């Protein structure tokens, strides 16, 4: 029986030599039904063309490094099975809406700055002393923010967001979801420090609720929900009498 094969078309771009990205085809063996797109890229790198560049690390949907456009949809390549595409060819491109560094590698600096700007860590007005023991939470308190804490910063939501594609100053889905994760945490007191970033002109109000960010999230996070609920919260803070605003 003839060996099963699949064609991978991958973006190639060398900023020192190429004016624009181009696609290069690789015909590789599809030897195992459990093969994912990342396995195909690793095969190309090891056996066909060692110069192909891309990011990856854990191979199990945790690190968020291997996000790429797979046939036009943002996906973690470690979670995109070849069997779902075969016998069609698969086109692998760098994530939409980001500058390309080389081949399939994008420049994530802009995203990292946005992430840092919302201070995604627990902020206390006064440090909780170690001697006081654990800062306990009930299950209900954890459920308030649990889904938003699943974000792995893979940036698929940014690649799916046309608003970010048109205006890359937009704070964007993941950064807002993580800001909300901490704003909803009963241990956190940093809401007023995050609000200037969330409520400014490039913050949540830039979102026109396309909703595709939540569709492509590989971890089941709903960033669109985080953004819309933040809109509602900031509005309520504005219209409610001063005494009822949360600190």
């Amino acid at each position, binding site marked *: 029986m003839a060996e099963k094969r699949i064609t991978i078309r991958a973006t190639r771009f060398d900023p020192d030599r190429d004016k624009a990205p181009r696609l290069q085809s690789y015909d590789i063996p599809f030897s195992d039904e459990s093969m994912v797109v990342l396995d195909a890229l690793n095969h190309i790198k090891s056996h066909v063309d060692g110069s192909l560049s891309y990011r990856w690390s854990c191979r199990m949907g945790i690190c968020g490094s291997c996000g790429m456009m797979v046939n036009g949809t943002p996906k973690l390549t470690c979670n995109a099975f070849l069997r779902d595409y075969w016998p069609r060819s698969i086109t692998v491109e760098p994530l939409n809406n980001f500058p390309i560094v080389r081949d399939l590698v994008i420049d994530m600096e802009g995203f990292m700055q946005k992430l840092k700007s919302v201070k995604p860590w627990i902020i206390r007005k006064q440090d909780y002393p170690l001697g006081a023991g654990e800062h306990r939470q009930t299950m*209900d308190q954890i459920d308030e923010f649990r889904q938003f804490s699943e974000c792995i910063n893979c940036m698929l939501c940014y690649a799916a967001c*046309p608003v970010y*594609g048109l205006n890359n100053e937009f704070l964007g889905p993941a950064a807002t979801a993580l800001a909300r994760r901490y704003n909803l945490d009963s241990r956190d007191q940093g809401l007023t420090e995050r609000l200037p970033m969330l409520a400014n002109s490039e913050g949540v109000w830039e979102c*026109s609720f*396309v909703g*595709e960010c939540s569709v492509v999230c590989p971890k089941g996070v709903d960033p669109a929900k985080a953004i819309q609920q933040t809109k*509602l919260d900031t509005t309520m803070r504005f219209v409610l009498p001063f005494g009822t605003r949360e600190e």
Partner: protein
Amino acid sequence: MTPGWWLRQRHYFLYIVREFTALPLALWLLWLLFEIHRAAGGPKAFYASGSPAFIAFSVVCLGFALYHSYTFLSLAGVIINIKVAGKPVPSRLIVLSQFAAWAIASLVIAAALIGFAR
């Protein structure tokens, strides 16, 4: 972003349709304002309800208004986050309550309009 990005997939296309519905509704309101302005010249100058063009345009706009309302109320389940007795209200219940309120409001307005017409 290419100009045709919204044709790339169904979800983007439906989003653009949702946003586009505001345009015919705005045009319909402008037309209605114009007709009200004409009504200053007496009942005969106001011909909106008897104009086939206005009625046809209104029917088209009703389709857009219904689609806009449907999408708006469906999204309420994502936006509204309320608790009753300490438990979060399920999104589906929130959406159903919005549609129920919409139906009741429509019935009340229809009854009032029919009442005035008599």
